[in-house]
């Protein structure tokens, strides 16, 4: 194998691994069981998308994809925070009088 072929193969393999990870994370997302589990899974998926951007950048040489990754790195956690906060507040509320 030439180095270029190795690279092609690696890109492919990495992509498959990352996508597989996404699928596995999705299983956790679907299974739960707690809200926190789902949030962790979603957070994980966000990070994995950043990885996808990296792979695509290597595969295509288009570095515009890194801009996507940058944005995601900055704001991805906002969803996590919002959902986590929801989980926390929801517990407070559930102890309250209205469900």
């Amino acid at each position: 194998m030439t180095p270029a072929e190795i690279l092609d193969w690696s890109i492919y393999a990495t992509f498959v691994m990352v996508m597989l990870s996404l699928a596995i994370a999705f299983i956790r997302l679907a299974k739960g069981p707690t809200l926190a589990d789902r949030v962790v899974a979603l957070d994980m998926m966000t990070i994995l998308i950043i990885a996808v951007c990296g792979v695509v950048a290597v595969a295509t040489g288009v570095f515009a994809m890194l801009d996507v990754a940058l944005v995601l790195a900055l704001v991805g956690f906002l969803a996590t925070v919002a959902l986590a906060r929801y989980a926390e507040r929801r517990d407070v509320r559930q102890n309250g009088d209205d469900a």
Partner: protein
Amino acid sequence: MTPAGLIPVIIAGSLFIWFAQMIPVIGGGDTLRYVWEWVPSLGVNVSIYIDGLSLTFALLITGIGALVMLYSARYLAGHVHQARFSLYLTSFMLAMIGLVISDNLLALFVFWELTTITSYLLIGFSHDTVKARRSALQALMMTGVGGLALLAGIILIGTTAGTFEMSEINAMDGVLKDSVMYLPIVLLVLAGAFTKSAQMPFHFWLPNAMAAPTPVSAYLHSATMVKAGVYLMARTHPSLAGTDFWLWTLTVFGAITMVFASVMALRQTDLKLALAYTTLMALGALTLLLGNESGYTITAAATFLVVHSLYKAALFLVVGILDAQTGTRDANSLFGLARALPITATAAAIAAFSMAGFPPFLGFIGKELKYAGAIAVASEPIFVAGAVLISSALMVTIAGIVSFRPFWSKSGTPIPNVKEAPWPMLVGPVVLAILGAFFGIFPETLATTLVNPTVAAIIGNAEDAKELQLWAGVNLPLFLSIATFVLGFTLYFYKQKLREILIGMTTRGPSFDNGWDKLMAGIASGSKALTRMIQTGVLYHYMVVTFGTALVVLAVTLWFRSTGIPAMGVPQVELWDWLVFVLVLLGAILTLVTNSRITAIAGLGVVGIGMAMIFILYSAPDVAITQLLVETLVVVLFAAAALKLPHLTPEPLRKRWLDALIAIGLGVVTTVILLKVTTGPIDRELTTFFETASWPEAFGQNIVNVILVDFRALDTFGEIAVVLIAAISIFALLKAKPEEEEQ
């Protein structure tokens, strides 16, 4: 007398004089025509056409109008709404004049409808009572039905003849009669005429219209408006009459109406109602006569038209006086008032003689002519003459009931302290009654001035007009006249018994008036039921129908208009395409099946991530970034709002096969359409322009951004407006709470 009362009198009087000075010209056989263009592109003109027919009507309208208005000026003096009354009555009169002098059928229709509206307002004048409101609506709807039919008829006439000018159409020999549209035209025109002129079975609104003040009854619902239908039949006579269809339709409807109305008149104890039915009878008679083309019948029609207007208006006004002076119109409570009301009684007697057809009054001549006309009816003279005989005999009876009994009968005690009406109310009946007597003695005056020109207008030839004469010699009409009186007097003496029999019969049989109520109730409940079925108030139903419509429409169109399976080459699908596909699919399924809000939101997040990946893979970084940012914000908003929202209840065990069917159907349809669309080529002209112009002309390397802020900046501007308004609206939504919610 207030200005509100006097001004209409002056208007009507002036117009009468203006029309009267045309008598020599028109009587001489000329016609007048003035044309002003109104809506030339639709062929609508304001064209005035005055011939004998128009002039006769115009004189009746303005002459009787002036007298009735004088009468009402006193009758309604002091009424809070006298001004409105005068306004409506004057408007009506002007509309009615417009109707009879318009040559353009569409202009005629405009005035036709205006008389309907003013009549509606006048019947409902005593709007505080349910009865007045109901009667007004009934009249409006019944004449409205006819009006719409007439409109269709007029349109067909216009299309067939190429013009709406009736004088031109009448001059075109047989243009309507020979066309394939003849039958629909006649049907539609007669629908208009019969409803307006209250022919059986469209008659029932007219007695109810008596809810209007008596001057209105005298004027609109006896002398003028109801004769608009007659006018229409006379006006279109040259173009439409002369066929068996015309003959038989008019004869049968007219005869039935005539007999039915005169019998019903006998049944009434309310004098006004009795008169109303006699009006119906007269309208039937006029219709019957207009079915023919012979000189006798048309002369009879023209004469009877005038006769009836004179005596009937007089009698209505008399009843109004009785009502005003005694407080009742009940035939059973009015006796022997001749001493207290000498002038009224005299006028009533003269008018009644005319109505009953005694010589030497005009009514006699009218009746003789009717018989002559009836005998002249070519095919079934006996049937027609019989009908005329029965109804004329009943007129004798009714005349006795209305004018003899209240004044001269000694079978009961007169109501005390009754005073003669003031002079403005007396002028009308007196003048009208005297005119009836005058024309009876000098029939030639009437013949030359009005009747002959009218006949000429209707059958095109004044030579065919028959002479009006009190003594036409011993002939069949004379014998029939004598038979009429004998029968009439007999019936008068058995009136009470007859009335009881009639009441017994009519209460058992079906009543048109009750039918009306049932119809109205049916419309109300039917439309309610239908609306409740369609506009259920349940969003689910609305959405099922909306989505279902989209599905059916698209599927049917696909099936009938774009058959065939899209020609797909070997799809070029990479592994990551499948992975993205599966990811989005899983996200969608998760959202679909979960009962947990957050899981659903997470599922949507996965779909969003998958979408972003599609955009990343297929070279849309800007879109991918936007998608991710928006997705994040959606999650944030959802997470915040969900705190105050209830849990998702697990899907109830309700069978949702219909929803599933619609959903899957729409999915399949969308896929098929999209597959078909993408197999075709795409025109990249626009994109090529953007690619080549982006940097050299718009100084930007990011073509998407250049499109957004330069090539299609207006879109973007609208879009940020949407975002801003969304913010304003949401702010309002959150802050605008009514007091009850703010606690």
